[in-house]
């Protein structure tokens, strides 16, 4: 599989009242064509910021984005916008309440000046059925739909310019569990039909397990582990990933006695810890962790790597 999107040493900083928030630091990763990469981490880990950067909503402070083999510049940015779309978490805020559904779905085409009014409406009509909504939804407004239906509309909007990559920012977490699986199946279905790639941002590892090919774990703006789903779930290498997986509740199973639990709060990204950002909460931390930033290095399976001085599985 060839690379669709690549991040090259991307950092995103914000200035907040004279201080610098290091939301994302030196992240490099790639998404292949047709692949689903999950970005997991707790809130404040920078996963949404990284998603916004990929979707073009947030310029990287350092580093570069590659798309379809070419580095994205100001000149190529606008074109790439049609091919990278985004689906948001909250289906109530994601749709303009004053726009009929047909206009919402056709909006990316209108912005990109693709086709005429008539062809755009035809595309909206096609997509509305494609995502499993009744055709009379076209002239109705967002307030007439439930959360799950709205998320279908948001997906139809993302699909309208025939994108190659969709950034899905926790698309299921605002939905009822019964609706989640429907939307998940819809996302899988359109992925197969369109050979789409997803950057799937989530904190729900159970959902991640159902959809994705690879998982990237983010902690305090740093990529701490990345690898194929099976390998990473079976043999997590970074202590943070291990704790994250142990924290997933499973029916009929008590928490294992040896469960690795992390204590405390994530440190502030205003002032991240020296060395390994995880050392303040890590059960394995040694002196070296406070001084040397660990680099991503292979950990066991092909394509599996972790940034830890004491990773398992090497």
């Amino acid at each position, binding site marked *: 599989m060839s690379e669709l999107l690549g991040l090259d040493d991307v950092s995103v900083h914000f200035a907040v009242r004279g201080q610098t928030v290091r939301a994302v630091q030196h992240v490099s990763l790639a998404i292949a064509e047709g692949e689903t990469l999950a970005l997991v981490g707790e809130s404040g880990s920078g996963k949404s910021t990284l998603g*916004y950067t990929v*979707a*073009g*909503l947030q310029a990287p402070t350092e580093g570069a984005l590659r798309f379809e083999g070419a580095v994205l510049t100001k000149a190529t*940015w*606008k074109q790439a*916008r*049609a091919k*990278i*779309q*985004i689906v*948001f978490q*909250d289906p109530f*805020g*994601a*749709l*303009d*309440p*004053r*726009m*009929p559904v*047909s*206009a*919402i779905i056709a*909006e*990316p085409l209108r*912005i*990109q000046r693709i086709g005429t*009014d008539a062809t755009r*409406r035809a595309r*909206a*009509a096609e997509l509305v059925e494609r995502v499993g909504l009744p*055709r*009379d939804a*076209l*002239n*109705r*407004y967002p*307030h007439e739909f439930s959360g799950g239906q709205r998320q279908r509309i*948001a997906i139809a*909007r993302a699909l309208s*310019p025939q994108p190659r990559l969709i*950034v899905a920012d926790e698309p299921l977490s605002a939905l009822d569990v019964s609706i989640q699986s429907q939307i998940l199946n819809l996302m899988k279905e359109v992925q197969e039909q369109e050979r789409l790639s997803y950057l799937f941002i989530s904190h729900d590892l159970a959902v991640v397990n159902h959809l994705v090919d690879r998982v990237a774990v983010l902690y305090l703006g740093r990529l701490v582990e990345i690898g194929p789903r099976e390998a990473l779930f079976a043999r997590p290498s970074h202590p943070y990933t291990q704790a994250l997986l142990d924290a997933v509740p499973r029916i009929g199973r008590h928490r294992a006695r040896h469960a690795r639990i992390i204590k405390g709060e994530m440190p502030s990204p205003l002032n991240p810890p020296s060395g390994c950002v995880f050392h303040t909460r890590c059960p394995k931390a040694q002196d070296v962790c406070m001084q040397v930033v660990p680099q991503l290095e292979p950990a066991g399976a092909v394509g599996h790597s972790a940034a830890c001085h004491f990773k398992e599985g090497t």
Partner: protein
Amino acid sequence: MSVMEGASVERAVSPWGLRLRRFRRHRMGMASLVILAVLVLFCLAAIPLQMTGMDPDATDLFARFDPPGPGHLLGMDEAGRDVLLRLMVGGQISLLVGLLATLIGGAVGIVIGILAGYFGGRLDTALMRFTDGMIALPLLPLLIVLGALDLTKLGFSQDFARSGAAGFWRIVVIISIVDWTSIARLVRAATLQIRERDYVRAARAAGAGAAYVMGAHILPNIATPIIVAFTLTVGRVILFESVLSFLGFGIVPPTPSWGNMLNNAQELVTTAPLLAVYPGLLIFVTVIAVNFLGDGLQAAFDPRSEK
């Protein structure tokens, strides 16, 4: 939904088509539109009458306070002028001043408010301090200065400066200058709320620029408070014009406007109350109709009104 449903497969209608559909279903709004159209026609009817030689400013001191009669359907005023004709001519001025001053002042307020709200930062600070400065200016001295401004010094010709048109435009400009600030603040506050919504982010992620976001998302979503402010302004402006005439700028007697006719009639309210009733009634009907028209427009812009 529509009558056509079931007959054919639903086709997508443009947002403006749907807005028109909703407006047409709003009875009071449609009725107000008709009433306003009738008022405009009533005022424009003065033009053919004046061409037949009738003059709204011609006085006839022997006919002062004449009761309504065949020649003069609403009688004569304190200077023996035809009341009906003066109402028609005055209406042209009042309606035009009300409409133009509201639209110009409102447009200035919308542009400044939306730019300040959307871009934020230094532009916001600069524009809002400017707005605060305008609000802080004392009204009457400002009006007197603007009213006394010598138009020939601004490069207008002598002929224009002396004509009635100059007085008309002067008053439109004066009202626009003092009246945009509240709309600017309102629009800025509403813009701040909308610009952080995810649908705005989605549009930007699809490559939309600031102009598109403002036109397609922000304006429709802040339309309701804007329309309310506009409708309230129209009525206020019509009355404000009479205050200005009273102070001696803008529409100066004998040129009639509903505002100055109402003002003049105040002194005569015991002897000839009807002279106050006619312009008062017309202003009242106009303001009410504009308010209901605003309701209709709100309904047109708000999809939730469809029920």
